[in-house]
């Protein structure tokens, strides 16, 4: 939902970032307002996953230029955990398995960290169990997964459901979903996309990072951005995603070549 007067949640200006001294992001500009759903598309290596990790604060990525303001605040002054507590959420492409740490305990600790920041009371073990069982419905997840170690032995689909469950618990302001559709069959994709749709409100925003149109059949974006060589090359409405589906990314090379020549 596009409302020009809605709060500007994320304001990315000329963002540059490197990993192991190799420049990946080379001047990204993007504004995200409350209520909006953005899709960032592009080939492997275009920089779209790097963008998501930089926004969440992954230590392997170094910001070398530009600014990101989150609700007016300099995002890069905040530790990753502080960003999360303030409502920035990254749904991982490859959620990490953590043997020995119970999923339920992990979810409770992280939910309480966010609640504390929002001035809400901490949930004790019992209150949290009720709370989490409510949220399980969002992704139709079996409660048995709460008793297991975080993501350990989960299938690809179960891991992604667990990510969306965390999103439901943390109630983010800006949710960045990094290739949440990868490795999902069509049923799992519908469940995960259904979860994302249920959680979208006019006060929050979603940034979908994806390769494929098929996720966008389930979640309708307000904006589609195409990334290439570390920048956003073109922005359009959802028709841009459909066009990509038809024509592929060959025009990207032509456009990059033309820019290089110019």
């Amino acid at each position, binding site marked *: 939902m596009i409302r020009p007067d809605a709060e500007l949640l994320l304001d990315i200006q000329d963002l540059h970032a490197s990993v192991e001294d190799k420049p990946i992001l080379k001047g990204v500009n993007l504004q995200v307002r409350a209520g909006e759903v953005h899709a960032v598309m592009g080939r492997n290596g275009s920089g779209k996953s790097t963008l998501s990790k930089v926004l969440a604060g992954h230590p392997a990525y170094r910001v070398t230029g530009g600014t990101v303001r989150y609700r007016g605040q300099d995002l890069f002054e905040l530790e990753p955990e502080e960003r*999360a507590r303030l409502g920035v959420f990254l749904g991982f492409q490859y959620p990490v398995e953590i043997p020995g740490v119970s999923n339920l305990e992990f979810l409770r600790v992280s939910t309480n960290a966010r609640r504390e920041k929002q001035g809400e009371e901490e949930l004790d073990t019992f209150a949290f169990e009720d709370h989490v069982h409510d949220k399980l419905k969002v992704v139709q997840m079996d409660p048995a997964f709460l008793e297991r170690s975080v993501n350990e032995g989960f299938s690809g689909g179960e891991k992604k459901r667990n990510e969306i469950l*965390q999103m439901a618990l943390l109630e983010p302001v800006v949710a960045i979903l990094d290739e949440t559709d990868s490795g999902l069959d069509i049923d799992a994709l519908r469940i995960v996309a259904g979860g994302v749709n249920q959680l979208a409100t006019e006060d929050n925003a979603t940034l979908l990072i994806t390769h494929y149109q098929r996720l966008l059949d389930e979640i309708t974006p307000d904006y589609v951005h195409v990334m290439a060589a570390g920048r956003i090359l073109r922005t359009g409405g959802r028709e841009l995603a459909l066009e990509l589906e038809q024509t592929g990314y060959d025009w990207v090379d032509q456009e990059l070549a033309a820019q290089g020549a110019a």
Partner: protein
Amino acid sequence: MASSVLAPVQERGRAALEQLGLPNRRQEPWRLTDLKRLEAVSALPASSSPLPTSLPASLKGVTRMVINGFDDPLAGQVLPEGITALNAEELEQALGHTLDRCGCAQVWPVEFNHAKAQQILALRVRGRVGPLELVLAAGAGLNATRVLLLVEEKAELELMQVLLAEGASAHSHLLEVHLGQEAQLRHGVLATADGASSLMAHLAVEQEPRSSYSLTSVVQGWNLGRLEPRVVQVDGQAQTVLKGLAVTGADQQLATHTAVRFDGPEGELDQLQKCLAGGRSHAIFNGAINVPRDAQRTNAAQLSRNLLLSDRARVDTKPELEIVADDVRCAHGATVSQLQDDELFYLQSRGIAAAEATALLLRGACQEVIAQLPAAAQVWRPLERVMESLAS
């Protein structure tokens, strides 16, 4: 009574020690050992006083026995139903049998215990017996203790062993267990100290067919530590589970030497050994699995997972598989790693601060083993002890 049986054993032990001398680094099982520390342990005088610390109350329904190596372990003790003490004749017959079957009767730590132990606690277990807790609390000096358990056919026992020490003291502990057919022993060992004391614990277990032995060991805080579980499945067809957690810090050295031998077909082993090494400490794991020709259709899996918590800590891990039988499944693996950035970042990205995330990951790493300890372990707060030692 016990001492009369042990007297000739002691004499033989002393003679053997004299002949063997102290171990040296040319001997494979001692290649990595800090021998100066071993020498200091061997020179300790026998302890004659119990550990001054008070013990937490045992869990309800658990029978506690405290042994120290100099008092009669059975004095004033009411044994739970199903457990009886062996008489001198029975003891003489049983003593050393399992050590011979395990092939460890003549190794140095066992001969050392032979030479030093004055008392033995020897029990027979029949039927299904309530949980037993054995506390070995070392006062200053050397605490040489010896325990023998005959778990009869179809008997079931849950045994929690706790070894405690502080200051200039050491444990030399020798346990022999014979498990009859279809017998079950769930065995927990929590060996915890303050960084100054030393530990030599030798656990020899002999399993008849269809018996089940499950050992969970948590060892932490020893200046020089050596835990040696040795299991033999005398006719195969038994189940063995070994789960170990070794935690070292400061300049501690802790070695876990396990040996499992299948002297018959269709035996099973499920083994996980975890080491967490911090400071300038050194953790060693040696896991021998022996599958001779008769041990067809053995199914064994051994995994050694090690976490280095500092740049100066060291881990040596070595699987030692000797497989002659051809129709077997023996899987083994070893990893040495540091706390993963990705795991930390994942937790941080969920609002959990770096320090808390680290603690959560370490808790998780320990809990995988600690959760397997028998219920009686609770009162000793094993997870808290380990976490406190990791935090210091």
